[in-house]
């Protein structure tokens, strides 16, 4: 390359570069980072009211500027017929352009959930900014806006706090699982129905908006994970709680860890078994025109607490505990299954399994699946195993107590 050619190349490059014109370039301090989105239905007008939780960078924990002390988020709402319309309409309230790539959480208001959620998720798939892995919750007994507005202790971003709450309880308690927008879309498009984690406000929602709510060791208003909302054809039908919810997770193979209290000889529910491993396998078959669901659950646990005497050094006792563990699990699973049958809502994705296994048969069942599911039989096999008894065998409690 000679000098002239090189100069030409440089000139062309320099001229061409600005033609891109910094397209799509946005400075961080010109963006309003949206941490959470709440969606409600305005019943009278059939419009969406979309609530945005925006991060207020000046008052986050790392910032030393005078803004500290103010809440970490700012909440604005906008109403429109479409989601996108609403989020552009929000510009009337916000100084900066909304930025959705870091949306952690989507909350659906109960009214919207009851009237049907199947239509609202298109924008999540279509937009390059909105994420499909944002967590999703249904507000139980309130609108999504109040959940968005609620400040949380410890976490400066309430949306992030709620996501962490979901993850935390999913990991160690098992009534919930982390459900993302993608899972919901999969549930809507797939066979069967879906469940979404429910969140409930305890206390006065108005008080929860204020910073003063946080200035106490126990916050008077707080959010709490509250089982699962069961949807059929995209409409909220029923709130599952406690063992029903856990049974559902069990059937969905989403149990990571959970605790089951087992009766001892002397005291009811006095032995805490921590389930540390659980795998669920599902097979389906048709018998006499009705589906049969063969479910095998293998679980492992460790005894973490005994509040009454049990001789854990004795192999027989351990086996007894294992049988008891299986029985308890069976109870919970059956509760969940029966409830789902009652609702004619296949929230366990058995339909998907059947379709995958036997597409021809599925084609005949497809239309009537809800009813068929309700008549299906659960062939449940559970294999419980106690892996360890912690750091001691016999409890210090004397025999007979």
């Amino acid at each position, binding site marked *: 390359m000679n000098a002239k050619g090189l100069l030409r190349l440089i000139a062309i490059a320099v001229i061409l*570069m*600005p033609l891109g014109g910094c397209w799509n370039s946005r*400075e*961080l301090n010109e963006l309003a980072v949206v941490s959470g989105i709440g969606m409600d239905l305005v019943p009278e007008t059939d419009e969406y009211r979309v609530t945005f939780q925006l991060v207020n*960078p000046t008052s986050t924990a790392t910032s030393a*500027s005078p803004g500290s002390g103010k809440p970490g988020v700012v909440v604005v709402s906008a109403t429109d017929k479409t989601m996108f319309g609403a989020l552009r309409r929000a510009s009337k309230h916000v100084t900066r352009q909304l930025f959705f790539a870091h949306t952690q959480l989507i909350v659906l208001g109960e009214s919207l959930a009851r009237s049907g959620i199947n239509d609202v998720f298109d924008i999540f798939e279509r937009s390059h900014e909105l994420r499909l892995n944002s967590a999703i919750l249904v507000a139980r007994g309130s609108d999504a806006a109040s959940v968005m507005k609620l400040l949380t202790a410890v976490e400066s971003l309430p949306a992030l706090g709620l996501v962490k709450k979901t993850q935390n309880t999913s990991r160690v308690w098992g009534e919930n699982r982390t459900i993302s927008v993608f899972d919901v879309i999969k549930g809507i498009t797939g066979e069967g129905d879906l469940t979404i984690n429910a969140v409930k406000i305890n206390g006065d929602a108005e008080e929860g908006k204020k910073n003063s709510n946080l200035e106490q060791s126990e916050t008077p208003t707080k959010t709490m994970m509250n089982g699962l909302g069961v949807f059929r054809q995209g409409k909220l039908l029923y709130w599952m709680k406690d063992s029903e919810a856990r049974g559902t997770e069990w059937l969905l193979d989403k149990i990571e860890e959970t605790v089951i209290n087992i009766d001892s000889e002397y005291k009811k529910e006095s032995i805490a078994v921590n389930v540390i491993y659980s795998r669920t396998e599902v097979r389906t078959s048709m018998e006499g025109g009705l589906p049969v669901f063969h479910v095998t659950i293998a679980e492992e646990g460790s005894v973490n607490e005994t509040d009454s005497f049990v001789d854990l050094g004795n192999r027989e006792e351990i086996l007894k505990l294992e049988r008891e563990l299986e029985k308890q699990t069976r109870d919970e699973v059956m509760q969940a299954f029966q409830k789902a049958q009652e609702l004619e809502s296949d929230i366990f994705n058995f339909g998907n399994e059947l379709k995958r296994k036997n597409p021809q048969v599925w084609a005949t069942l497809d239309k009537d699946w809800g009813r068929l599911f309700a008549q299906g039989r659960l062939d449940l096999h559970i294999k419980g195993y106690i892996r360890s008894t912690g750091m001691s065998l016999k409890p210090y409690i004397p025999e007979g107590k």
Partner: protein
Amino acid sequence: MDNRTQQSADAAQTAGSTSQQANNSPISTQLEETIRAIQARLGNSPDLVVRTYDLINRSARVAAVYMTGITDRGMVEDFISHVMSFQALNDGAMLAVTPEEVHSYIKENALSIGKEKLVKDINGLLEALLSGDTVILINGLGEGVSGSTCGGEVRPVTEAGTQVAIRGSKESFTETISTNIALVRKIIKNPDLWTETMKLGDITHTDITIMYIHGVADEETIKVFKKKLQEIKVDSILESGYIEQIVEDNKYSPFPTLYNTERPDSVAGNLLDGRIAIFVDGTPFVLIAPTTFFMFFHTVEDYYQRYDISSLIRMLRFVCLIISMYGPAIFVAALNFHQEMIPTPLLINLASQREGVPFPAFVEAVMMEITFEIIREAGVRMPSPIGQTVSIIGGLVLGTAAVQAGIVSPAMVIVVSLTGISSFATPAFNMALSIRMLRFVIMGIAAFMGLYGIAIFTIMLIAHLCSLRSLGVPYMIPMGPFVPENLKDTFIRSPISFMKLRKRLQTNTGSTSASPKGASKRKSDER
């Protein structure tokens, strides 16, 4: 000193033909006339010393001519005393001698200090004088005898200032070419270590020596390179950088294609790899050619430390290369175009830092980078006692104060300083400079086009690197062309027992040079 005299004698012969000066008259038979002619040509310079002696009853008149300062006083005295011993030997025995007798005596016996040679014309005489020779002129004879008495003040061999090694030889080259050559000879004691000398620079007549190991270095490359050197037509060669810039294959590339070092062990190692070393009188920086891109990221110490540590440190250097080239660019691109790429907590952290910063991220980055370059340059040029203080204070005060004043964000200071430090982790300073220069280009592209632009630029850069050649050797060897054998000593440094073959500087295909004879040979015990 043996070495030195040999050098200058060779040099004088080579340069004799290239001398371009006019009024080249033969040496007059009249001594006085010759001396006058020399003085006239040198502009009556006071450092010219002429000592005349009348020998054997004034039958022979002899003059010793030399320049003070560039000659060794003791050697001059020694040299002249031989002339005196001639007188003592024949005292009383002879009444008169002819100039021819004096001459032949000097030739046969006297010049035991070094190889003598005859000068027949004024130009040759001047050249010998200016190379530090002492010339003996005999009245009545149009011929002088010169003997090397080169000396004068030289800097002793000291520790390397630019290429420091924790372990390994502490010697570094000096400004004297003969010392430098000797330093390498001390390492490679092999008759195959060949040197060739020439004088370059029409005014400066600088001594240039090329050194290679016969049988290891590629003959074709040596021939091509020598031809290139001989074609050089410049007034002056003041430093090896002159040669580097003239013989470079691709002058418009930002990347250096010649390596320079002031470590004799580095030169020795490269010679053993089949490379050529170019010594230039007056500089401790010896050029090495041909080079490869990856050579600039290797140090001699890699071979002295154990292989595992060396390999890790080498990989670290390549990480530093990427940081120093792309650090601010990726930061700017992520901040301006790809906010979704940054993990949420980090994004919020960065956003809160950037709150109140009045400039776009790119301006901020350029500002800090330029500040860093100013501090660096000032630190280099400043007298050493204050240089370091100023750079530290400059860095601290500017960095901290700028952040507190809200002009720049703390994260940017971190990125810029990390980049700055990384660029110093490249062992070769000239390569580090090239990378530093490119960093600004990439930053600009990142500000306009984000990661997309960075990717395009990188593709272009790699294409360019692959197109480069250093003395006909592909610059990106062993990656492009791919030479698996060399990979043992590129990104990692495998144990010495694994490296049985010499590094290949040529590929079998697509090369105009001779086949890589080095590749099939067993490596010598040195490396």
